[in-house]
């Protein structure tokens, strides 16, 4: 605001603008609780917590806060093995959900329980390999893992960043030092400033060797205090998510305009994965497999189900390269590899809006029947590969 009007009026205008800005954030984002997990799901596809359970135990978790629910319910580990399954919304979203429907991880967990294996699935929307690596490094010392299942999912290679619900994991010194030793780890550490979950956690960190600057320590304490005492603060991450979704919606409108101008339809549209991001994610994927193998864990890399008779919006050569890259990386590190891409029948896939006003086959989500088929296929793959090694 360039010099104009009375100074006192401008000071008041400033104070009022700041107050209005914070109040507007509070008003806009505290009421409008967008379910980010469901935001990217297809038509009539939903996430239902009731379908996450096996034998009264929650099998699927998505964030650090949520993790307690999964970990608390685990039986004592002395006589049992813990198997970690990493994945995205395919693991928890069900198309055309009916009460009593179960997800693939819940069904698989029931089967494995008899073999003294406790399955825990960490799944979040559009998970990327960097996040998978972070989740693995965070869980490894906490869970005494016996095996890991990693999807070779092409859409994940398009994603980037560490979502706020997992950034607190980077405040753990053990996670930081484990990541720092990996080729992709320093980029992950550099991409996000470590955030303390609470003042208590900040205190706990200080007990460990503290390499933070005074600025970082003071800032973390201040942020923790603000989070506890200032209600509008708590809408910040919600607001960031909502704005991102709004921008994505705006981007879709631009794509529609492009399609209108170019006459583009699903028949000639493909999902482009920037090679840059592909390279970055492939490095993290490699680090995940090699880290788990170095920790002595059997690893199963699997190609997840996809609709085979319908349109799959990736360039075939890119998809083929990705599958062979995944298999090569798995074999190079002594991990197992299984391809279950044809495991789910075409009729059980859901539908989605492609963002340009067209209804197309959802290439990621399916009905409860599809979840049963996926669980069957993965159970077979596990039995043939890493389950005996875990035993």
């Amino acid at each position, binding site marked *: *605001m360039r*010099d*104009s009007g009375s100074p006192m009026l401008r*000071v008041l205008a400033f104070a009022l603008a700041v107050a*209005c800005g914070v109040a507007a954030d509070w008003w806009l984002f505290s009421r409008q609780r967008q379910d980010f997990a469901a935001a990217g799901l297809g038509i009539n596809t939903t996430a239902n917590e009731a379908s996450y359970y096996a034998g009264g135990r929650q099998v699927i978790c998505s964030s650090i806060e949520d993790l307690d629910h999964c970990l608390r319910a685990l039986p004592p580990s002395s006589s049992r093995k813990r198997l970690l399954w990493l994945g995205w919304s395919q693991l928890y979203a069900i198309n055309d959900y009916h009460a009593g429907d179960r997800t693939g991880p819940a069904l698989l967990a029931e089967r494995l329980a008899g073999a003294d294996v406790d399955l825990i699935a960490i799944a979040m929307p559009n998970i990327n390999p960097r996040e998978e690596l972070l989740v693995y490094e965070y869980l490894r010392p906490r869970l005494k893992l016996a095996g890991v299942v990693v999807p070779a999912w092409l859409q994940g290679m398009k994603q*980037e960043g560490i979502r706020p619900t997992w950034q607190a994991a980077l405040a753990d010194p053990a996670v930081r030092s484990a990541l720092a030793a990996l080729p992709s780890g320093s980029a992950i550490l550099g991409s996000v*400033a470590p955030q303390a979950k609470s003042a208590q956690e900040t205190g706990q960190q200080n007990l460990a060797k503290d390499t933070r600057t005074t600025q970082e320590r003071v800032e973390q304490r201040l942020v923790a205090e603000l989070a506890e005492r200032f209600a509008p603060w708590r809408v910040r991450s919600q607001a960031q998510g909502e704005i991102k979704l709004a921008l994505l919606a705006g*981007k879709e409108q631009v794509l529609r305009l492009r399609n209108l101008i170019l006459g583009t339809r699903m028949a000639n549209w493909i999902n482009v994965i920037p090679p840059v991001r592909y*390279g970055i994610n492939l490095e993290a994927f490699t680090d995940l497999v090699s880290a788990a193998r170095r920790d002595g864990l059997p690893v199963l890399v699997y190609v997840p189900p996809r609709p085979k008779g319908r349109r799959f919006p990736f360039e075939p050569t890119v998809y083929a390269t990705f599958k062979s890259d995944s298999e090569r990386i798995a074999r190079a590190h002594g991990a197992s590899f299984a391809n279950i891409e044809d495991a789910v029948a075409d009729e059980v896939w859901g539908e989605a809006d492609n963002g340009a006003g067209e209804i197309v086959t959802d290439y990621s989500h399916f009905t409860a029947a599809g979840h049963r088929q996926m669980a069957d296929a993965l159970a077979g793959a596990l039995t043939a590969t890493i389950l005996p090694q875990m035993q």
Partner: protein
Amino acid sequence: MIFNSFTYVFFLAGVTLLYWLLPRRPRHLFLFAASITFYGFWRFDYVLIMLASAFTDFFAAINIHAAKAPAKRRLWLALSLAVNFGLLFYFKYATFIVGNVNGLAHLLGREDLLKTWSVVLPVGISFYTFQTVSYTVDVYRGRIEPIREPLLYGLFVTYFVHLVAGPILRAVEVIPQLDRRKPFDPEFLASGLWLILNGLFLKCVLADNIGGYVDEGFGANTATLSATDVWVLAVLFGFQIYFDFAAYSQIAIGSARLMGVIFPPNFYFPYVATSPRDFWRRWHISLSSWIRDYLYLPLCGVRPHDESRGGLVPVGDQVGAARRNIALIATWFIMGLWHGAGWTFALWGLWHALLILVQRVIASLGLLRRHTRLRGALGWAATFPAIMLGWVFFRAQSLEQAWAMVEKVMQPASYVRLDRLQSGYIWSALPIGIDPVGYLLAALLPVATLLAYVVYRDLWPRLAQRPALVLPVALAYGTAVAGLVFIYLQPIRQFIYFQF
């Protein structure tokens, strides 16, 4: 301490309040202590390096002034320059030179000739070194009297608002304002607060969000990028560094204003420049003015100016073309290396020297003299991409990467993937190797900048004459900006210029 943090918001509020409450003497001491604390939030041990640099000049300036014999004056000046540039050389350039010597030895099939080591670069060393050197040189030139009060002088160097990333100001511009506090005027608060809010918006909302695309693109395998990707990355980085550094300058200028200290502007819409020289009158004005007065004009043998305003100036026919050109190239080579110890920075500097040389040639042709608007439009159309391409050298992680990216731009085949046209997928034939959102941003940002310039230059002054409209517009703008700053304010990444 970094500006884009809640720590700084609270720190600044406390310091400003006490500044206005305290009388003169304790006020100087308090502000000096606050400045040391500000720097110490990063590393307290490096405060000593800064003070060593500052007080060498304090004593050197007094002795230069007291000395009658020119030889003695030169000796004190040399001592000051040796200490300041010695520290700068050790921390910033020594490992670079050792690396180059060893690299040359490897080329000749020899082992390392010199031992390598690692050292942490003191934050802001390039800025406070230039500031203290300008003070000593000004005393040597007889432009100013030396300061006798160590506390006041220490405050001039360490004053936290411009300590780590400028603006690079002259003693004559800052010391009188710090020494004799003006009576409190609500105008200080009014202008300072709005500048800080704007700066935080530029940094937290714009620069940091663009930075993600830039980091990803420049961190990639260059072979996977197309020519259009390189252009997009260049434009995105150009805007990231502009928003980032302009943000720092606005917060610095705004913070100083809260204490009644007026700093000159450091940026003025650089991307609307119609020539390379015009760009340097709008970009990092305090640095280009410093370079003008302490390097370029002395090399040309022309009398320098006395203030950190104006940026680069033409010396015209006062000196011969050969001397002018050599001075220009030497100046820009040093300017490049000032930004960072690497050949990529030196190349960036030389690129700008080349642009100015080309501008001189074109200007000498006297084309379109009567068509001012057309000349301006064509000038902008040529200057904007040229400046943006230069950022590739600046941001590239190595010379190899910079060459590879510039090579792409020169290859017509790199603008479209013809092999993909036959695949039936239109989208894949478009040469996009980075996130499509980056493309959208790169297209929108120049347009938005031109619009903002028109609003600032033409629309706002007219609006300001109608007070009934000013308040609602300011409130709407402030609410939107403050709301976004509140959501995004967090020290995700430091200001880019911290590393210089």
